[in-house]
């Protein structure tokens, strides 16, 4: 009789079960819905999706909104994280930036909507982007702050002593050394922004229609096939952006995973 031993392997079973149920099964279902039409393998869902110019417009707009949001987050987040890492109370101040994340994001977005309306701002693409930046900014600041505060000060001092101008110190020392933070910040902001739907619906009175909204409508209308194709497109986008980011970051990314 084989002995049942409480090895480490035994403790991984619940985790494996969880992954099978909630990660593998949904993926298989998406593939089945996308490729199988009336019991046969069929690409008609793909033809339906890619043959419709409106779908392409939605996808382009979503990617553009994602790019703008990520850029804004980076450009607001980087100086913020940089300043915070210079301050003694930086660790505490970071908390203030993260605090909004403790509030449920739907409530946060509804509150943002009320503020925009009270200020008399016309809801539209501008408010959608503002809402997204507000929601995802902490995701950018957090990894950036961790990396920037981890940079050894003596590198900066050495660069200065050796005669580098401040601009050179910044571009040749600080930015390259914080690259890992920038990369993980971009990943954490860009990917969720492409697929959000609640923010765009609430902050534009549903007049801005993004990729996430489109997927939601497909599943609402029972069009599982096309909806699944769109989910695959989404997955491919995620993998693609990860691939590109990894390529760009090159050797620097080995500590990436430790940041989060």
């Amino acid at each position: 009789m084989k002995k049942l031993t409480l090895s480490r392997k035994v403790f991984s079973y619940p985790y494996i079960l969880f992954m099978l149920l909630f990660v593998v099964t949904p993926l298989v279902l998406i593939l089945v819905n996308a490729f199988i039409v009336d019991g046969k393998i069929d690409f008609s869902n793909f033809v339906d999706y890619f043959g419709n110019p409106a779908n392409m417009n939605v996808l382009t707009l979503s990617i553009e909104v994602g790019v703008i949001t990520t850029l804004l987050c980076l450009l607001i987040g980087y100086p913020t994280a940089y300043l915070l890492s210079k301050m003694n109370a930086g660790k505490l101040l970071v908390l203030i930036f993260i605090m909004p994340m403790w509030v449920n994001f739907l409530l946060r977005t509804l509150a943002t909507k009320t503020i925009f309306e009270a200020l008399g701002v016309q809801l539209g693409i501008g408010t959608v982007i503002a809402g997204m930046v507000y929601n995802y900014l902490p995701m950018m600041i957090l990894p950036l702050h961790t990396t920037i505060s981890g940079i050894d000060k003596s590198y900066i001092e050495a660069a200065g002593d050796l005669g580098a101008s401040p601009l050179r110190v910044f571009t040749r020392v600080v930015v390259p050394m914080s690259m890992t933070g920038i990369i993980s910040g971009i990943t954490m902001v860009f990917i969720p922004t492409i697929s959000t739907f609640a923010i765009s619906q609430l902050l534009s009175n549903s007049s801005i229609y993004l990729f996430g909204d489109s997927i939601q409508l497909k599943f609402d209308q029972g069009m599982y096939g096309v909806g699944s194709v769109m989910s695959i497109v989404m997955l491919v986008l995620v993998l693609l952006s990860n691939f590109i980011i990894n390529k760009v970051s090159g050797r620097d990314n080995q500590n990436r995973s430790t940041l989060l």
Partner: protein
Amino acid sequence: MSKLKVILASVLILAFIAGMIVLGIKDPTDEYLVVYNCEEYIEPSTIDAFEEYYEEVTGSSITVRYSTYDTNETMLTKVRNGDARIDVCVGSEYAIERMLKLDLLYSIAEVETLSSHAISNSALVNPYVDGKIAELFGDVEGENMRDYFVPYMYGTLGILYNNEVVTEEDLQTGWGLMLNEGGNPLLEGMILMKDSVRDSYAAAICYAYQNDMIPGEYDGYSVGQLISCSDDALLAVAESVLNSQRPHLKGYEVDFGKDDMIASRAYVCLAWSGDAMYAIDEDPDGKLSYFVPELDGEALGNVWFDGWVIPKTADNLRGASMWVDFMCREDITMANMLSVGYTSAIDPDILRLDEDCRQMLVDYIYEYEILDEDASDEEIDEFIELFFDDTVRYPETSALLGVMQDYKNVDSAVSMWERVKAETIDLIPAILIGLGALGVVALIVCLATLPKRYRLKK
């Protein structure tokens, strides 16, 4: 030692299994009923009242598990999947037609036989409602649809507007009000459309009908046939109407329209009559009105009927049939009607004469301070007459009020709707400007924070 491990592992596994059993198996005497209704479509206290009534009649207790959906399409998807138990649910006529075609429903007769409980209050339904349903849905693939559902509420699709802002000239444009055809500058960007394919399509087709934009090949089609048709030619007409409407809109909504109208954040809103009644009741200033646009003196629009159905996933048939029966009872009908604003499908002539209903109306009058506490009986009678004669609540029959039927081609209608909603905005200049401006700012901030003593000249 290894024996100990085996014992330990078996104890853990047994404890785990026991825990699952305790969590998974409920007390078999704990009977429940799954009710799936549209949002804000019932007076919540009637649910408790049903639980009490059920215990009174049968002697056993029941718990109602009540859940809601926002559009018929969501409900249809859930019922069609068939993986969740739903004992009784509400749907609009076209959705019921689809469910019937897909063979998802029990007939009322089957339910009555299987549950040995008769839904006798179904006989109280308004003859007008029954007539319309018999006329349009009397033969759905050989079945009479009325045998499969019990009407719950009905009403029209029309326009809720702010009467302080919308002028008489604006109203003259009829459905054109949704496109601000009167050119009222106050209405620009203050119009709300429904974020729902079917309702927006119906409104667009009504506008096209009013303005003779329907292609010639559809001459002789009734309004109902037009708003139920998903032919490409008609979809193209609707698409152009909806596209030209877009610049005038504030946005699309399904749930916040009432609040925005009351708070004057919007002045015109495509609305179902019940939502409109509710908003008019709740608005303290009396600035809201509702109308169904007319063509040659006849109301032109959509009239819809919602009803209770019992899907084949139902498990508690006795509970379901008693629920439907209970919902048709005069006092419960009245309570729901006063609470949600929609018009019950129960014959108003029966409600008018019912003593309980009269008392509820009197309470309603005092609660909303419509009349003073010392109002005479004549005044109260007069109010009750007006309540039942209100043409918003009980629309007059009109040949131009169409009923929706199931689309033949849902997918092309959804694509049309997506094309309307997917606005192309060129964001590339914004990306470049934003990148440039903020890059400069970021650089300055970072440079300024570098310690001064390192700023050496080369």
